[in-house]
């Protein structure tokens, strides 16, 4: 007897990062698969993962890096489909500092705002300045969140640079407050930064859940796969019409602009590539003490069976 009614955890459902989830819900794909999905929104990705480990959520749409971290902590979780190929994180500097800070190298001594210390925006910033030969102690990191607070911090001039996601970045770009230094929302950007994919949003389960409920997992993957296919063809208008109007950032134009900027980010086939896994792991390994010495079997972090079957069925 498999579990058909699921609790799905997510940390910030309104974010473009998790757009496929909202679409799958609004397009009715879960129902179509005979699933009863309750979406619970958390204050952050860490909390949704914790609720999965604690057993209160069955499935999470979250960052791929969680699967690596949890392997080290002996909490086997496994991704079953990719939603985002790129992290979608952008590093930018405040406009009036742009004359001084022209490249990532110039960030030395700067105050960088990240969504939260210890989050992927923090690691992203660390990884990039590391490549330029800077140490983590060369910059100071401030947690500013991912909402209006982040916009406020930048506008107020409390920080020199920002490592954040959409819609914060698009809003700041639209208002002309920032100059982008590194952009992982686009194919070229990622090519430049990592030499390829760097899986971001994925759908993951606990490993034993997958074992016990393969049929349910398959249905979840089917729903998301169908969404990805829909998204591949969708225009900004289609998306704006499908999501709830509250998601429009109070300004449909801004929303569409943000979507366009992020469109390349969404996965096309749902498969996490080996290169992508290595990229993600490499980025973590440099800056996290715990991961440095650990032995991670990347093949256990992603189970491609379901996506392949979904692709075959579709």
């Amino acid at each position, binding site marked *: 007897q498999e579990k058909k009614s699921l609790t799905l955890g997510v940390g910030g459902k309104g974010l473009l990062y998790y757009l496929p989830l909202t679409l799958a819900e609004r397009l009715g794909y879960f129902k179509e698969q005979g699933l009863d999905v309750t979406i619970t*929104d958390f*204050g952050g990705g860490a909390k949704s993962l914790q*609720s999965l480990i604690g057993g*209160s959520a069955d499935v999470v749409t979250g960052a791929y890096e969680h699967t690596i971290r949890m392997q080290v902590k002996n909490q086997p979780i496994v991704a079953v489909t990719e939603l985002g190929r790129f992290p979608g994180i952008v590093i930018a500097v405040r406009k009036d500092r742009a004359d001084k800070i022209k490249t990532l190298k110039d960030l030395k001594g700067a105050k960088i705002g990240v969504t939260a210390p210890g989050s992927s925006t923090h690691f992203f910033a660390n990884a990039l300045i590391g490549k330029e030969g800077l140490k983590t102690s060369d910059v100071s990191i401030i947690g500013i969140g991912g909402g209006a607070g982040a916009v406020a911090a930048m506008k107020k001039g409390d920080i020199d640079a920002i490592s954040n996601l959409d819609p914060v970045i698009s809003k700041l770009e639209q208002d002309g407050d920032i100059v982008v230094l590194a952009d992982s929302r686009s194919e070229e950007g990622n090519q430049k930064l990592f030499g390829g994919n760097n899986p971001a949003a994925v759908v993951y389960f606990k490993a034993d859940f997958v074992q016990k409920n393969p049929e349910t997992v398959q249905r979840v993957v089917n729903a998301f796969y169908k969404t990805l296919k829909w998204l591949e063809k969708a225009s900004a208008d289609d998306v704006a019409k499908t999501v709830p109007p509250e998601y429009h950032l109070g300004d449909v134009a801004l929303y569409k602009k943000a979507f366009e900027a992020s469109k390349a980010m969404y996965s096309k086939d749902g498969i996490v590539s080996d290169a992508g896994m290595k990229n993600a792991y490499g980025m973590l390994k440099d800056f996290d003490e715990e991961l440095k010495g650990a032995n991670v079997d990347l093949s256990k972090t992603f189970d491609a069976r379901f996506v392949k079957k979904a692709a075959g069925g579709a």
Partner: protein
Amino acid sequence: MKINRIQLLSLQILVAVVAIGLWHVLTKYEICGLARLGFEKNCTILLPPFFFSTPGDVGARIVKWFVEGTIWGHLWITLIEAALAFVIGSVGGVLIGFWFARKPLVAAVFDPYVKMANALPRVVLAPIFALWLGLGIWSKVALGVTLVFFIVFFNVYQGVKEVSPTVLNNARMLGMSERQLMRHVYWPSALSWMFSSLHTSVGFAVVGAVVGEYLGSAAGLGYIIQQAEGVFDVAGVFAGMVVLAAFVIAIDLLVTLVENRLLAWRPAVADTRT
């Protein structure tokens, strides 16, 4: 200086109108002459609508919620959570408060631990509550309880210690058992302390519920606010807070009603002619 109900109500409404008016003006129009006050620009909108929305938008949103009826479900969830948090927290606070007040040894030994527990940031505890209580309403109730409990507890504890010594001695000489002392002496004497704390607690029960929802949930006012916040929907955030505030006033009114009944024995406030 005695004024009647209607005058009072009009004054209250006046305050609200002035506040909303200010909000409207400061979010809508540029205020000039600020350079002299040390601002960078001479003319600027003091409360940018991106952060503060405008009364019109917020009002429209609230109307929309109620017209479409989407808000009721969320309100109901939050109400249940806050009510449970309030009841459990204050009953717990009262019981443990009495217990501590009557057992000085227990109180002395656990005193530092109670104060420690009071200082733990509830936000950090949220995942543990989710682990134990799941993602339903109970983890939010737990968060509210941890706020309400301490406020009520400290006040009841103090209230019991404040009993007039003569009245207490009289009760003991009349032969009251510990339980009877509780009921006939400590309880009524601590009541006004309790009610003072209950007014604060009503607010905190709701805060607990909303913060719990804000940190992870699928429904409730906190959920609405969180959803709105992530997508720059400031009107939604403020509308949520307004509904919340109205909601708290309604609950608080109930507390006051109960209070007036239970504290009927007190002398009316002294005639303060001066």
